[in-house]
């Protein structure tokens, strides 16, 4: 008899049992998927999806960390921006006082009062610019600084120092800088800014001699040295009613004196305006009635605070109106230059805050996308899961019932 059609009873039961077990196992697995909500419970269910989900989780947690750091950075820059705002407010008040101190009818005592007021505002300014953030890092500390980035007033030259590493830290796609470049905001560099202070020697009360603001024409030529313009000879000119003047420019650092420059004749009855172009990189004009022996000294200003200090000295210690006018004129010009830099830096701080907002927007979008990736890789589609479970349940039930039924069929039942 051929064995093709034979099946052993024990083997039949074994095979059915195995199938029942397999069905039950798959039912239990589907149930596990439903209760955990995950399609991929173990890595062996779908290794690629498990790895994708794990990577998505890593990236999500990294975005969370970056956002947290960004909040700290944003706070620091917001504080820095408000510090700059306070500084600008103080400097504006100082400017108004300087303008007021330039009034012609003031007596020296009044000017002394103004000078004291400006002094107190300048002290407040020094405190404001040395502010630190909640972690004790100076807000204007640039690339790294001492605990007080702005050191001064110091005796000796220069009178204000930036005790730190100038420069701005860059921002990236996920972070912004935490400090602003204080050197760029408040200090002057001769070549970068070309801010010079001009002072005149004491002029007797019957004459006047003042200078205009010193403007830079070619920054590359500026040496950063001090200069002195000495009027060597002032005398009647060729035409009657004119005066001629000659002056030399001396570089006080190197001691080199230029050749005498003769000013074209100017009318004696009106104050003259003499343009001085001999100083490398800068021009300014001297107006008034010069006499031999008058000197104009030019000093580079090291910072906005030095300018304010010079204003305080110049206004408070003005010997006469001429000196006061000179001091006020220089102060206004240089304070304006300083304010421009402060405003620039404040604008940059505002832009950094905007950048932080944009970064936050980008990061939250990325985060949503990554969560979607993770869910797609790992999570169970509930509808699919439930329908699969129902199918498996029905199949298992059918297998159980058929097993019970087949077992009843046997030839022994029909043998009497």
């Amino acid at each position, binding site marked *: 008899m051929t064995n093709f059609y034979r099946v052993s009873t024990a*083997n039949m039961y074994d095979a059915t049992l195995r199938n029942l077990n397999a069905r039950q196992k798959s039912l239990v697995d589907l149930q596990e998927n439903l209760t955990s909500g995950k399609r991929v419970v173990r890595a062996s269910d779908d290794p690629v999806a498990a790895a994708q989900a794990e990577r998505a989780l890593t990236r999500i947690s990294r975005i969370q960390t970056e956002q947290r750091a960004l909040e700290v950075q944003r706070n620091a820059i917001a504080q820095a921006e408000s510090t700059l705002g306070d500084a600008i407010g103080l400097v504006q008040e100082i400017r108004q006082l300087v303008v007021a101190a330039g009034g012609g009818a003031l007596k020296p005592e009044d000017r002394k009062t103004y000078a004291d007021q400006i002094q107190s505002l300048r002290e407040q300014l020094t405190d404001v610019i040395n502010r630190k953030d909640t972690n004790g890092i100076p807000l204007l500390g640039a690339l790294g600084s001492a605990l007080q980035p702005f050191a001064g007033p110091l005796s000796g030259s220069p009178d204000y120092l930036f005790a730190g590493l100038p420069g*701005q830290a860059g921002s990236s796609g996920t972070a912004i800088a935490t400090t602003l470049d204080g050197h760029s905001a408040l200090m002057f560099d001769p070549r970068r800014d070309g801010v010079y202070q001009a002072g005149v020697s004491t002029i007797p009360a019957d004459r006047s001699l003042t200078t205009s603001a010193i403007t830079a024409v070619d920054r590359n030529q500026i040496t950063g040295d001090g200069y002195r313009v000495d009027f060597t000879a002032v005398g009647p000119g060729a035409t009657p009613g004119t005066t001629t003047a000659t002056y030399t420019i001396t570089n006080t650092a190197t001691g080199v004196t230029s050749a005498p420059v003769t000013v074209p004749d100017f009318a004696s009855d009106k104050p003259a305006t003499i343009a001085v172009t001999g100083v490398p990189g800068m021009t300014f004009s001297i107006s008034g009635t010069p006499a031999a022996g008058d000197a104009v000294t030019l000093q580079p200003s090291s910072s906005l605070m030095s300018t304010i200090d010079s204003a305080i000295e110049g206004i408070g210690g003005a010997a006469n109106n001429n000196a006061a006018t000179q001091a006020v004129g220089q102060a206004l010009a240089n304070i304006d230059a300083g304010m421009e830099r402060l405003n620039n830096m404040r604008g940059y701080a505002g832009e950094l805050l905007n950048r932080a907002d944009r970064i936050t927007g980008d990061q939250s979008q990325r985060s949503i996308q990554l969560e979607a990736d993770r869910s797609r890789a790992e999570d169970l589609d509930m509808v699919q899961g439930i329908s699969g479970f129902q199918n498996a349940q029905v199949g298992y039930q059918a297998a159980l019932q058929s097993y019970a039924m087949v077992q009843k069929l046997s030839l022994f039942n029909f043998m009497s």
Partner: protein
Amino acid sequence: MSLLNVGARALLANQVALQTTGHNIANVSTAGYSRQSVAMQTVQGQFTGSGYIGNGVNVATILRNHNELLTRQAAAAQAVQAGDSVRSERLSQLQDVFQGGTSGLGAAITDMLNSLADVVASPNDITARTVTLTRMNEMAARMRSSAEQLQEIQYSVTEQLKNDATRINQLASSIAEANEQIARVRGNGQSPNDLLDKRDQLIRELNQYIQTTQIPADDGSVGVFVGGSQALVLGSTATSVSVDESQLFPGSGQMRLLFNRPGATPVELEEGMLGGGEVAGLLRFVNNDLAEGRNLLGRMALAIGTTMNYQQTQGLTLDGQPGKPLFSTPASIQGYTQGAAQGSIDLSDSSKFSPTKFAASDYEVRFTTPPAGQVVRLSDGKTTAFTDLNDLRGQQIDGLTFDFTTAGAAGERVLFKPFASAAANIQSLVYSPRDLAAANPVNAAMGTSNTGTLQLAELKAVGPALTLPPDGDTANTPPAFPGGIQLQFHAGPPATFDVVNQGAAPPTTVATGQSYTPGQPIQIDGWSITLQGTPQDGDTVTVGNALDPQYGDGYTRNAGNASALMQLRDVKMFDESTLSDGYAGLMAQVGTRTQSAQYAAKLSDSIASNLEASRTAVSGVNLDEEAARLIQYQQAYQASAKMLQIAQNIFDNLIQSMGR
């Protein structure tokens, strides 16, 4: 008279048939039972003048329905199935060690590196540093505990192997006994069906543990061979096996099945030679899968430990000292060998190994013709040849340098397991928050008269040989030279820069005309600076020594090295995957192995069950068939009994008609 004889014989024959059918029914569920059927033979006819008259029926023999080929095939398939399913079970256990999600080892590593962001935000905050050090400790603890779990699995597998070896020995001696019994009764002329069934069942059980080949001998015994050619049972003698570490690589933990021939050294059988069976599956698991799991974990521990240690030693602590290593990593790895070769891998000198090139594998150094030979990477068999020990010492194979002091003899093999113990022994070494080297050893300043838009994107120490920029002049005020290395830019286009050393007056130019690309790191003297923006002519950037007295304590508020540690997240470290993605790759690798083992187990399971169905189609008992045969033989018995009755009737008739 002869009718009586025929009837009596028929009765007996049918009685035997009924008993045999009953025997079959009784043994319907006995494992390994081959159904027996009665082979009837007609008795030779007696020659008479009217022809050969038949003389009834005889039971010739009780046939054992049995197909040798199917039995052998079914046993072999069951062996393969046993091996695959035990390996699949154990791999599921292994997979559970490497869980993913927010409580897994990968999340611990990511959290540890992410916690450095708080240190970067506030470099002198002790709390942030403490949190980072705690997370490092936790990561090391998790790695150790994963390694311990792997060790537990190894231990339980070794125990199971030992138990299996004992069982194999028991079965082998039972088979030998059965062989003897069968040989003894062979002379009787009839086949000892039940003894044969018992022996076949023993062999089938043996195949669960180890796949065997059976060669029948002339005396009726069956020789059982394992590993293709080792005689486990020969006639009535059984040889024993045991499971132990390979003597070729003492101390390495590689397991082998040892075949203990009496009076000779044991023969080592590895899993490739064994075919199927639980022992083969477990050996395969221990020597390949568990080893790979351990190597993957160890490579992760070693790579993370050594790279973080390296970066930490580049930086400065809060007290201005160079950092000390964060994690304990093995200093050197010895090779395992039976012979005289002495070799090791040096892991203490950072110039001798490259963590980014590690491959998760064990290595064998084979001396083919000493001192030349080849290094084999065991995970995929890739070989690298070397000509002598200096040549071997001079090259880095997968980031490792093999340093041999003594070469081996010809044919000697030395096994290296560089990653086996890294995860079990990793400890966090830095406990004081001040000792976290968050500060950079160098700092940067832009020139104050810069008119371009240069900004500092990144500054860090990268090594390998970090030379700090020179200090400024401390003897004179004002200082005669400012110190540091200055980069002087030219606008171009293309933008270039010169490198000037300002350590003395006058400064010395180190390099000129280096090309500048915004956002590209510039590496000089072991530190690297990345700038953004476009320079104008005359713009400068000065890089100085952070501990230079002119900068005071600025380094305590610097967190550049902490940033550099965080950037390790993006270094490609594990086969082209970054450090933070390394664990996902590990999970996928172990998961893929487990999945393919599961498929293999399912496949071999279905093959085995099909073959078993085929075998039982020949040898198994079908109750309905036996019931039908019962009816058949019962009817025949009744007919035979009737025949006797008729014979008796005839005799009675004859006697009656004869008598008066």
